[in-house]
């Protein structure tokens, strides 16, 4: 994990985790993009031999602890979403940036629905459409994150 500047990957994931618990004004809080998922999708697509389902599961588990949800809920959802990327990374790489953004949106929606289903099963929560607002911001954010992380990857020549 740490060879060839792999520490940078960990650093970006750590920043993503901090961004996902950073306090925001209540009006925009519902729109908080899925920072961790988006960064994981990028790394899994770019370097599938470095970042894979296990990384995703560990990150999801950290999110569980840090958000105070039942242990394993975010871990499972994250692993399922990243499994799809790991399985199809060669296809996704060849899509245009906006097609990738849409795929990221679909994965984010899947992620949120899996989290919702598990929570519904555990504590009987009701569905609100606002739970899916982050999907919109995640789609908008994808091109920026993609170009930024590509720049980071090339600059540090992470392989």
């Amino acid at each position: 994990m740490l060879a060839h500047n792999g520490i940078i990957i960990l650093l970006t994931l750590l920043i993503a985790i901090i961004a996902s618990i950073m306090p925001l004004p209540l009006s925009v809080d519902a729109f908080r993009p899925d920072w961790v998922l988006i960064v994981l999708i990028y790394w899994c697509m770019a370097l599938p031999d470095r970042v894979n389902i296990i990384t995703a599961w560990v990150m999801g588990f950290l999110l569980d602890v840090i958000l105070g949800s039942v242990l394993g809920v975010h871990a499972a959802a994250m692993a399922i979403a990243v499994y799809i990327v790991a399985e199809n990374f060669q296809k996704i790489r060849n899509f245009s940036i906006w097609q990738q953004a849409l795929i990221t949106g679909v994965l984010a929606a899947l992620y949120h629905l899996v989290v919702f289903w598990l929570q519904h099963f555990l504590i009987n929560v009701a569905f609100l459409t606002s739970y899916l607002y982050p999907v919109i911001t995640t789609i908008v954010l994808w091109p920026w994150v993609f170009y930024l992380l590509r720049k980071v990857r090339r600059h540090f020549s992470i392989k």
Partner: protein
Amino acid sequence: MASFESLRGYLQSMISPLQYIANTPKVAMTWISTNVTTRQQLMNENRYFRLNELVFHEQAMQLDILKQENERLRTLLASPLRSELKKMVAEILSVDSDPYSHQLVINRGARDGVYEGQPVLDALGIVGQILHVGQTTSRIILITDTSHAVPVRVKRNGLRLLASGSGQIDRLNLNFVPQSADVQVGDVLVTSGLGGKYPEGYPVATISYISNDESREFLRVYSTPIAQIDRLRYLLLLSDEDPINIFAPKTETEAVK
């Protein structure tokens, strides 16, 4: 399950630096806003606090006399004396939580003597209880969480009820209120002390809505929490005599039991 709880405690301690980092922008903003207040503002505030202090001092004097009197009466009745609860002030770390539950993170942990199930109050009323404990941070579950309930009684007539969280920040549901129950809009609900978690007599909520649909088995009663749950900053933790530390070595916890 107990081992899972301590695993969670260790994990919580491990990630607490991240929570402190995420909290820094907020801390910086508050620092700036407190440092750029005008002299005039400070003077006004000072005057206001002085007046308040006078009023509270007077009330405290009366409270002292009442306490003594109460103790004397209790000894006369040979009922057990109520011991003073220990208190600790904690500040909220503003970090985001799971949208499916109502939780908060505070800057006190096992190192400060926080234990699981400890009742948490603000200046006005009950806020919730401690859910997970880490070394330097811990997590509070609010009374408005759907998986939380408080045993309460109506202050006016002592009727016992159960206030469970609704998942909305400004509403508690009262379950299983019989149609014949004597409740009115505006009644204050205080903790009844029956669950053993919350000490008796602290305000929880005021009744805000009662449905008069007689075709239902029970009355539908809603209440609004008295504590300002959406505007919390400082909290008060009440504690018993011998709290249980999940980080304590095993022999020690066995000895406590």
